[in-house]
């Protein structure tokens, strides 16, 4: 072990509180020092607060949807109200929670720490993107709640441009604005990863987390402008009658679907790739084992980010694209499964024969792997033309994407939140409560969404609350599951906040994990590193596992 390796992997215990330089949280306490900060770590926490608030709003809407679906015939809300509620849910969850969730919080906090930089390349731009995000999102939210919009998160034309009688225009403006925040965040990450790596931090010494964020940022840069222009065109058509999508105005509605899905399929990878990065950090740390097939995971990440741009047509199989095109899109969609499976196999192989510790982050990670497999496999069902004819527009699709977005991304988010919580705050969360909530969420999630596969297969369409009585049992099951899920989310909100004041103090590296971020004190000082780190070690340099099978050998 070379000197610098020793210095950075096993930092000396942090000096006592007295005489220790103030960390980023305690450097100053004024409101101004938070709302005008350019420190990537503080901005990450600002994002964390904002997206948690939006998550709560989206979750309340979800609760109302499930409430309405307890009884057949849609007796609880009027049709209009129901449409507005599921639009709130979709818009808030997709655009204001899932897309920024992991990149804007963990990515912001961790990328500079992981690559040994003092900050992102453009700190003021970073703050600006938070303001753009919050401004645009609050504007839309006010519109969705005070006025109401009934188009769903997909804004399909010509319904959204001509027929809807709700307040579509402000919602579009807000979502367009929020898009710029994504673009600026992606731009900041790409430049930071290219230009700010510490000496010795080569591309193949970067943690997978950084690789996945690099890929995500590329999608931000390449796909977001396409949704921006698509929404601008919607806006122009609705506001000024400049026809692009409505046939009555000389337009073409299928064009909107092309533009929309050219962004929105890659957007699902914006949601899922950062989660994969989180899992790729948690799994080796809790198996105390080098990640299996590092380069394959890195290549698979770039592979996913590339293929994702050529499969959008699978959302349009029954909407009038030709059979030839449908077959091509179907085959390409199958190809997505290959890099996805590479990752799942690599995580599994990492766990295999590791020194496994089943603490909260690892529980979330294991849940993620299982649910992501189910979501991905049902994606393949949907990519099969003959099956999609049958289940398109049903609850089967709803269950598919919730397995990936909630079962995948949301679990990765919570896993990462627990894993890095000591680094963010300098406090440990209560482990027992963490495990209970991880179990509740896993069980609640499956009870909520598995019945939806069955409902969809039996033919229950999505976005209707008026359904035949024979579907009631499965719907009640799903709603019951949602209450368990809600309890599972409430626990972390309470005990994490509690831990800010009463949690045990965390050491620099409570999990014995590898990576530059664990070499700084918890919480890190304002400029991250006391002196410029020099990297001369591989990522995930966990000690080799014992050669014999009885597991008696010591760590390290």
């Amino acid at each position, binding site marked *: 072990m070379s000197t610098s390796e020793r210095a950075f992997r096993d930092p000396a215990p942090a000096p006592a509180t007295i005489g220790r330089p103030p960390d980023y949280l305690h450097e100053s306490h004024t409101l101004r020092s938070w709302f005008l900060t350019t420190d990537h770590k503080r901005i990450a926490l600002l994002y964390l607060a904002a997206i948690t608030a939006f998550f709560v709003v989206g979750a309340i809407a979800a609760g109302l949807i499930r409430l309405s679906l307890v009884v057949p015939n849609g007796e609880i809300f009027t049709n209009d109200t129901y449409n507005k509620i599921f639009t709130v849910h979709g818009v808030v969850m997709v655009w204001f929670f899932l897309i920024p969730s992991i990149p804007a919080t963990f990515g912001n906090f961790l990328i500079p720490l992981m690559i040994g*930089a*003092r*900050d*992102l*390349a*453009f*700190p003021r731009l970073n703050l600006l993107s938070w303001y753009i995000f919050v401004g645009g999102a609050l504007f839309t939210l006010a519109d969705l709640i005070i006025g109401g919009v009934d188009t769903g998160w997909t804004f399909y034309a010509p319904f959204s441009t001509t027929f809807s009688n709700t307040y579509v225009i402000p919602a579009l403006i807000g979502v367009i604005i929020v898009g710029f925040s994504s*673009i600026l965040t*992606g*731009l*900041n990450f*790409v*430049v*930071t990863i*290219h*230009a*700010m790596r510490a000496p010795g931090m080569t591309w193949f010494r970067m943690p997978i987390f950084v690789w996945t964020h690099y890929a995500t940022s590329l999608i931000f*840069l*390449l*796909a*977001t*402008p*396409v949704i*921006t*222009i*698509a929404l*601008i*065109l919607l806006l*122009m058509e609705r506001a*000024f*009658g*400049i*026809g*692009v999508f409505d046939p009555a*105005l*000389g*337009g*073409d509605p299928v*064009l909107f679907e092309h*533009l929309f899905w*050219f962004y929105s399929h890659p957007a699902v990878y914006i949601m899922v790739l950062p989660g994969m990065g989180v899992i790729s950090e948690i799994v080796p740390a809790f198996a105390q084992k080098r990640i299996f097939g590092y380069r394959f995971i890195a290549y698979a990440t770039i592979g996913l980010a590339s293929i994702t741009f050529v499969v959008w047509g699978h959302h349009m199989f029954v909407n009038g694209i030709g059979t030839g095109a449908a077959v091509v899109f179907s085959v390409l969609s199958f190809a997505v499964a290959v890099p996805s499976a590479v990752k799942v196999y690599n995580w599994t192989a990492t766990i295999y024969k590791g020194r496994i510790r089943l603490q909260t982050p690892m529980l979330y990670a294991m849940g993620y792997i299982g649910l992501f497999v189910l979501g991905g496999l049902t994606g393949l069902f949907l990519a099969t033309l003959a099956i999609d004819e049958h289940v398109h527009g049903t609850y089967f699709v709803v269950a598919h994407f919730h397995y990936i977005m909630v079962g995948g991304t949301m679990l990765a988010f919570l896993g990462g939140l627990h894993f890095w919580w000591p680094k963010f705050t300098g406090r440990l969360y209560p482990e027992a409560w963490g495990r209970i909530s991880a179990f509740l969420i896993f069980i609640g999630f499956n009870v909520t969404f598995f019945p939806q596969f069955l409902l969809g297969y039996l033919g229950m369409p999505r976005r209707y609350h008026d359904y035949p009585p024979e579907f009631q049992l499965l719907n009640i099951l799903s709603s019951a599951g949602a209450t368990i899920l809600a309890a599972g989310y409430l626990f972390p909100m309470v005990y994490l906040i509690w831990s800010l004041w009463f949690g045990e103090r965390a050491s620099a590296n409570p999990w014995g994990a590898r990576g530059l971020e664990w070499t700084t004190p918890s919480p890190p000082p304002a*400029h991250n590193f006391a002196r*410029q780190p020099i990297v001369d070690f591989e990522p995930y340099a966990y000690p080799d596992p014992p050669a014999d099978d009885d597991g008696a050998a010591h760590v390290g």
Partner: protein
Amino acid sequence: MTTARRMSASVAAPEGVGIEVAEQFADATQQRHAAQLGMWAWLLTELLLFAGLFLCAAVLHVTHPAAVARAARHLKVWIGAANTAVLICSSLTMTGAITASRHGWRRWMLRCLLATAALGTLFLLLKGFEYYQDYLEHMTPFLDRPYALAGEPATRLYIDLYFLTTALHALHLTTGVAILLGMTWIARKPRFLHRHQNWIEVYGLYWHFIDLIWIMVFTLIYVVPR
């Protein structure tokens, strides 16, 4: 740098040229690299913003060649061509500003920046005149007045796309001129080049890019489908 210093010796009152290193960067080279890369990344997203429109126009051209050709023949190709020339000249003056800034010739740089802004404004005036001509010829299907090619629905989408694309470009140019004027105002202070020469370089990329986008608009929307 050495050449620059040597050359500036022949000119009256040259200024030191450099940048102020921000605290997150290790040195000026890294900062320059990051700034350039950041602008390129921004231009990439801008390109994709326009690409959506170009693609729509191209697909329409393939599916309805005759109607698109008819619509395209109603566009004022001469105004478009004149505007292309105007923007190419503005790129030249922008390059002049960059070169002057590298040598520390602040006065020349300011003149070139103002000339660039003036050419940009000329473009916008010509564009406005062109829209007015379109209006007079009843080529505005989205307004509440008769439309010259009402018999052919496919021309309508093409003309709508023409308006949207050129308006989006004009919006970029307007922003560009505004930034240019703001930057000229800041750059009039002595020692500007000492601290922010980099701004001129990075902004130059943006200006050239708007120019390039116009050349694409002109070729793809005005010329090719005729």
